[in-house]
């Protein structure tokens, strides 16, 4: 079971509280986790990744195990601690604006 932490606005949009738990098939990567997240919560489509390019939106950041994964390839395996559910995959709104 993969645990995903959403930023507050997206928790409200998805109507969830706390962390989201997902069953993810195959290798645990950014892409597979986000695919599973959007399949479970279709209202999140387009809010984390661009519809057309599937690239991360500019002011979204991904963290796992205290590391910034935002610039890692989407198919790179996430840490084992995320794959086992010990640590969450964190989707964070960047510090931007004012």
């Amino acid at each position, binding site marked *: 079971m993969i645990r995903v932490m959403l*930023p507050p*606005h*997206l928790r409200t*949009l998805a109507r969830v509280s706390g962390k989201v738990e997902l069953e993810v098939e195959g290798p645990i990567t950014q892409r597979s986790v986000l695919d599973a997240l959007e399949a479970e919560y279709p*209202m999140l*489509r*387009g*809010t*984390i990744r*661009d*519809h*057309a390019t599937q690239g991360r*939106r*500019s*002011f*979204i950041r991904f963290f796992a195990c205290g590391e910034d994964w935002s610039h890692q390839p989407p198919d790179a395996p996430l840490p084992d601690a995320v794959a086992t559910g010990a640590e969450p995959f964190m989707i964070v*709104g*960047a510090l*931007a*604006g004012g």
Partner: protein
Amino acid sequence: MSEVRVLVGTRKGAFILTSDEKRQQWDISGPHFAGWEMFHVKGSPADPNRLYASQSTGWFGQLIQRSDDGGQTWEPVGNEFVYEGVPGTHQWYDGTQHPWEFTRVWYLEPSPTDPDTVYAGVEDAALFRSSDGGKTWAELPGLRGVKGHLWQPGAGGMCLHKILLDPSDSNRIFVAISAAGAFRSDDGGQTWRPVNRGLKSGYELPDPNAEVGHCVHSIAMHRSRPDVLFMQKHWDIMRSDDAGESWYEVSGDLPSDFGFPIAVHAHEPDTIYVVPIKSDSEHYPPDGKLRVYRSRTGGNEWEALTNGLPQSHCYVNVLRGALAVDSLDSCGVYFGTTGGGVYASADSGDSWAPIVRDLPAVLSIEVQVLP
């Protein structure tokens, strides 16, 4: 007794203000979608409890929300706005060509006859339509074919910010695009042409009579007389008596003809409202006095409406979407400010009172009258 519902879009959420037809006591609901920019909320004329709302932020992009119960509950619907074919390029600030990029939905115009059909005006400027209640959206790409490569964003972005559906001809659509101009379709949105003849933009364009490039801030019509259009241009109040074929200036005796919104009285086609702003470099009312100006002669002769509005030290703006009228016998007029005030008049503008003073900056106002 009728109910009035005012739909307010702000920088940090949407608010719904309701009153009976006296329009003296108001209930305020919100913020809905707290923290999000709500560029526009509008109800379907065919089913007033069907509302569409444009919700966005720079972080999470665009969402469209739909309510089927007058705004008590909402459901996110489709948010995939993909330009038809190869998007191409438009003029950029430095004169180079820049790819068309979707940013947000500025304006939603529901069909007058079908609650599931709604048009969306977006940035970068284009027109989309949904026929399934907002679940899916398709571009009407003919619009961008009208010299779109010459369109260039203004300071507020290259936005399609107004859609007028001709109530007498379902095939006729007008749109207004900031820093591109006004455009008309006579075949339901398939083909378009610019309707900007007579607009003069001497300080903004190398060719002041250019076919496209004029910075139209808003357009308005009265439903009984759809060939007569009124326009607040960057500078100048303009009027067309021939569905946009030609325009002439009706700024007349206004203290400034710079401004953003324009509206027409619900029952008097020659009564129009504007909110003059000092200049393009000072976006607040002249002399710090918040004055709506009304013309009862279709332009040129204007009177200041001040009763109940702040007449000193007022330095707010009224944005292009933030002025609207209701359809009650005694026509109500409403506007919202960048200072978060929403003002209402139940007597065509003769007197005003704030409904609420301290919302986030108001982006848009729409009004519904419910039986």
